[in-house]
């Protein structure tokens, strides 16, 4: 199994940290992982994306031409990455960030209203975990237990009391993602 994922959105949406938690969870399951950010003059509101590869085999290139799954959180990211999803692949998009949804017929398209859900739950900072929950529902790349273990490993001790909130967010994402 090799899963090649691009996560793209605005800086500040938690794109890079979502990728990091996914990669860490993969590592905890003994898989091979690579996390490759498109680093730039970073700023809140600028574009951010990260390629995450989780595989049973050693990962060749951290830089890819096409992806199994694209998680897109804003319109420019959708425009950039929709053509780069492999036929038969998956796009997950956030309803709040995208006005013109994807149109390809040869891929599976999922919508997740994660921004709305995060606002409703009054947990705006867990937006990225809601999206991650959506991914794990349709594509269990890693187990939820590994994600929680990854959170324990990567979050500083002082934030550990927030892990249950993150778990709540992941479960919310699993609940609200829907196929179009």
């Amino acid at each position, binding site marked *: 199994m090799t899963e090649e994922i691009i996560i793209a959105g605005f800086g500040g949406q938690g794109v890079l940290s979502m990728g*990091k938690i996914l*990669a*860490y969870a993969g*590592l905890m399951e003994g898989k*091979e*992982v*690579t*996390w*490759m*950010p498109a*680093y*730039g*003059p970073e700023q809140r509101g600028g574009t951010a994306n990260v390629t995450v590869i989780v595989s049973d085999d050693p*990962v*060749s*290139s*951290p*830089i*890819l*031409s*096409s992806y199994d799954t694209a998680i897109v959180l804003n319109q420019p990211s959708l425009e950039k990455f929709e053509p780069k999803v492999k036929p038969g692949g998956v796009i997950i998009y956030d309803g709040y960030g995208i006005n013109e949804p994807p149109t390809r017929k040869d891929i599976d398209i999922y919508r997740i209203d994660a921004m709305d859900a995060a606002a409703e739950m009054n947990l705006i900072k867990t937006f990225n975990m809601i999206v991650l929950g959506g991914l794990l529902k349709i594509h269990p790349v890693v187990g939820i237990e590994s994600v929680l273990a990854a959170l324990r490993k990567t979050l500083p001790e002082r934030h550990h009391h927030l892990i249950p909130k993150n778990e709540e967010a992941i479960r919310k994402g699993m609940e609200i993602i829907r196929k179009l």
Partner: protein
Amino acid sequence: MADQEITLMKGNEAIAHAAIRCGCDGYFGYPITPQSEVLETLAEQKPWETTGMVVLQAESEVSSINMVYGGACTGKKVMTSSSSPGVSLMQEGISYMAGAELPALIVNVMRGGPGLGTIQPSQSDYFQACKGGGHGDYHLIVLAPASVQEMADFVDLAFTLAFRYRNPAMILADGAIGQMMEKVVLPPFKPRRTEEEIIKECPWATTGRIGGRKPNIITSLELRSEEMEVINLRIQAKYREIEAKEVRYEEFMLDDAEYAIVAFGSAARIAKKSIEIARSQGIKVGLLRPITLWPFPTEEVKALAGRVKGILSLEINAGQMVEDIRLAVEGKVPVRHFGRLGGIIPDPDEVVEVLKSSF
């Protein structure tokens, strides 16, 4: 064992952790994207409180390299890191260290140039690293890591080679290897050498004239041309020995290959993916990955010429290593180059297209 823990980190962070663990005595550097995490991680780890390693942010790259020069004179394991424009600033100091035959480690996490260029990954400092970026007839020992694991492993290797040959060594990485996170097993802790061990291992070092030994004078200056030629010949003899003994490379799917890609660092990773794709389309292609860029695996590339119908040099630059490949194959086989410039990384599909159209 705690030392053997598998962890996830950036290439730059791996360099910093590996430096502490291999008993490095001092790091002198100045921040620049995309390598700043080296200095940041060292500052975070505070090795001066544990191993006693000095970590210093100098006022410039010029200062950093001269601090490295000074530290190296005393036989200490010292290093610096920077990215392309910063490494250009260091060239005078590097040439002096090569001339004075001093061991040290310089890490270059390359970004696109020329000039200040961009902060995105590039491999356009191959010439500078391998052909003597400063003045004079000299070489650095140049290691090209292609993974975060190799970033960690090559720190100790670079120091080992630098001390074995009394010559500066360079880890030539790029923004992609520096910024990406992968699994890594950090090397085990090695204590820093004691003063006594340094005196024993480096009888040439300026360690203080204990027991009335002859003064050790370290300089790259010798105004008598006859003497300077002798020094040069000795250094050149050392380079021939390094060329004979220290070539390192990796072969990937070359056994039945009809075509070969030669690529180093992150370009070699892209090449592996391109090879997977090309082979799925029935094109038999393999990879030769130089791990030491200097000494270059000339004999291995030469041997390839007898086995394949064509060689593609995949580099994230306008064509630098391709010159060494062409010298090695002596016109026996067509050699093409492909690269992207200015911080753009070639993607695996376009490499496959280039392969198809090149031969």
